[in-house]
């Protein structure tokens, strides 16, 4: 049997807090991180968001960057989360020569570009921010602050970016191209995508209510999360116990509409099927689904229909975007880390703000966090604009020897 892909470290920063422990605490206490818009000079103060409650200056001190450094917020969030993952995996003492860094982002340095864009066009006041604009610049910056990498790239498939980073990382490990890989994503809230989603009229006026009959759309969030992945053989060699394994993944394209999902959830069914096929598991083996569940009319219906089609009996399901908001490019990793915390600490995280079942679906999400509940496998769905659908399956680590 092929070497299993193991997760040995993880880090997270989101509206729930700046590490795994704060995140778990809030999940167990059912305390959402969604609140008021701060740190962003937007007129849309009435729209609730899931912000990381640390201003840039504080983030800079936390990650040990000089206050005068020209750096994007997406980069700062990324460094904070990736560092937590690296420390947990004891990666620095592993003696590895070939470590990769694969990060998902879409807004990149946009939060700075939107502040200084008129200067970029008309004068030379803020030229130092120009080269921060693109996605790759953020990844390079995060990498620079973490250490030396053999490989580094950026995935930008909108809201499924981080999930796709996990797939590339796993493939590189399977072919022995890297000793270990740090995968995930980072994204801060920008006026650009806040206004973008707002013009599409898919932002909820209150905190999002995924899978609720009266859901009103997305609540935007921000954050970063990363996993350290390595092969089981490498884990054995350096005697580190894996947190869990990545047992399957699938990526498919809905090929239906740039911003809407197909009514039958074709792309979602395909990505979930591919992931199940690779894992060798049956739908009935999946103990929990962390849904993409954005809270829009369209996504939750399409994803819900797809899940009902594939799962004869729908497993416990929740969208933890009701805690963090939709962290867009980082969401695949943020919600994977949340689900791994839940799987390894035996609880099911709630789908907050749910009150009324969707007529079209034969299931309801988990209303309250359920403690002392054990499951062996979970599925994480992550879908993006343009029908970029990705599904991942993680399993409890069980030593086969």
């Amino acid at each position, binding site marked *: 049997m092929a070497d299993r892909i193991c997760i040995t470290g993880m880090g997270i920063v989101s509206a729930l807090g700046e590490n795994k422990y704060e995140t778990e605490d809030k999940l167990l206490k059912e305390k959402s991180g969604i609140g008021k818009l701060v740190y962003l000079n937007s*007129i*849309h103060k009435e729209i609730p968001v899931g912000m990381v409650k640390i201003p840039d200056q504080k983030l800079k001190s936390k990650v040990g960057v000089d206050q005068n450094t020209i750096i994007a917020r997406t980069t700062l969030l990324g460094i904070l989360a990736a560092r937590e993952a690296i420390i947990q995996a004891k990666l620095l003492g592993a003696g590895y020569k070939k470590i990769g860094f694969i990060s998902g982002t*879409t807004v*990149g340095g*946009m939060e700075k*570009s*939107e502040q200084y*864009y*008129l200067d*970029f*066009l008309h004068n030379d006041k803020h*030229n130092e921010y*120009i*080269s921060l604009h*693109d*996605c*790759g*610049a953020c*990844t*390079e910056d995060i*990498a620079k602050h973490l250490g*030396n*990498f*053999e*490989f*580094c*790239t*950026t*995935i*930008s*498939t*909108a809201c499924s970016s981080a999930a796709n980073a996990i797939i*590339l990382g796993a*493939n*590189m490990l399977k*072919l022995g*191209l890297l000793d270990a890989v740090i995968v995930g994503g980072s994204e801060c809230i920008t*006026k*650009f995508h806040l*206004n*973008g989603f*707002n*013009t*599409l009229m898919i932002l909820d006026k209150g905190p999002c209510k995924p899978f609720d009959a009266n859901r009103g759309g997305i609540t935007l969030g921000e954050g970063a999360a990363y996993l350290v992945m390595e092969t089981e053989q490498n884990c054995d060699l350096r005697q580190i116990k894996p947190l869990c394994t990545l047992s399957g993944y699938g*990526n*498919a*394209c*809905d*090929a*239906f*509409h*740039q*911003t809407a999902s197909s009514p039958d959830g*074709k*792309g979602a069914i395909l990505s979930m099927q591919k992931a199940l096929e690779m894992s060798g598991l049956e739908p009935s083996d999946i103990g929990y689904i962390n849904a993409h569940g954005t809270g829009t009319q369209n996504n939750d219906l399409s994803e819900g229909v797809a899940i009902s089609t594939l799962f004869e009996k729908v497993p416990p399901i929740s969208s933890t975007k009701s805690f963090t908001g939709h962290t867009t490019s980082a969401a695949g990793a943020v919600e994977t880390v949340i689900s791994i915390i839940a799987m390894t600490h035996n609880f099911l995280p709630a789908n907050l703000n749910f009150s009324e079942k969707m007529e079209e679906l034969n299931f309801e999400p988990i209303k309250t966090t359920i403690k002392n509940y054990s499951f062996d496998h979970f599925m994480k769905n992550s879908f*993006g*604009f*343009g*029908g*970029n659908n990705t599904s991942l399956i993680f399993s409890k680590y069980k030593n086969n020897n």
Partner: protein
Amino acid sequence: MVYINGIGSISIQGLEKPELPDWGKDNYLRCSEPDFSKYISPILSRRMSKIIKRSIVASKLCLEDANVKMPDAIISGTGLGCIEETEKFLLSMIEQHETLLQPTHFIQSTHNTISSQIAMYLKCNGYNSTYSHLGSSFESALLDAFLQIELKQIKNALVGGFDEMTPDYKNMLAKIGYLKNEPFLFEEMRNAFSSGSVIGEGSNCVYISADKTDHSYASIIDVKIFHTPENYSKTIDQILLFLDKNNVDVSEIDAVMLGLNGDINNDLIYDNVYSGDLLKPTPFIYKHLCGEYFTASAFGLVMMAQFIKNNRFSNHFYRKYHPTNPLRKVLFHNHYHNKTHSLILLGKC
């Protein structure tokens, strides 16, 4: 090993054979566009931005060339994504103080719009992804496809490098020293003596497959991306390791296709790596024919694939002298500010 079975290119060169372009005093050229109505119905193309139209046509030409209707996967590299639409939304958001905005430009602004619009056009439900990592965006996409074929997750893929360069973005790049101040001379490609480059754009793609056909252009023996080598000798080590992994001796490399762009800081890296006795294959260059941009290497690969197949090449591509051997094995080497290097080992079929 995979095979390049189809190519498609929209570049500043148009669809004819490469000519030396007149860069003008701006050192900036835009794509020479075909008549899109020949390829995409006006009803569809009305809603598409420039880069989407170009990329769909390049993909269509590529698949037709390969005689394939549906790829298993669509994987794109784009450094800037749909920058024109991004700029439109950004500017109206700033000028209108976040009011009365239209969603169209936002919808079309994300980087993955290109890959997903190609998928929608082809109705392709297969694997779909987009890489946006500076000068290795296209190579990242190619690596992803290559690995998936090796792992038998897919059998073939449409892999593209897509970028557009707007006048505003070009001006921003000029401010931070990416453009030459003086009109560009072709001689600078052979021996750069000033900083800055010339800026272009393009949509170039290859169809790669595990299966060889009568029409195959070249084989891709391996792809490698490596990061931030400490010095030149580390770069040479990486190249030698890469060749060694593929059981290819340095002496077997007939030519090397280099990402020289006329910027002395960029080109010095190649000069130092390929100056010793160890690595002395015939150097080819291409960026003066397509301009420098994040995914210019896709144009270079499309050109080199043709040279290998036909064993014919325009002398615009020589750096110093023409090769004496037919092209059996070619090393494709590109780097971005010495941060990210990419290697593609190509072979004759």
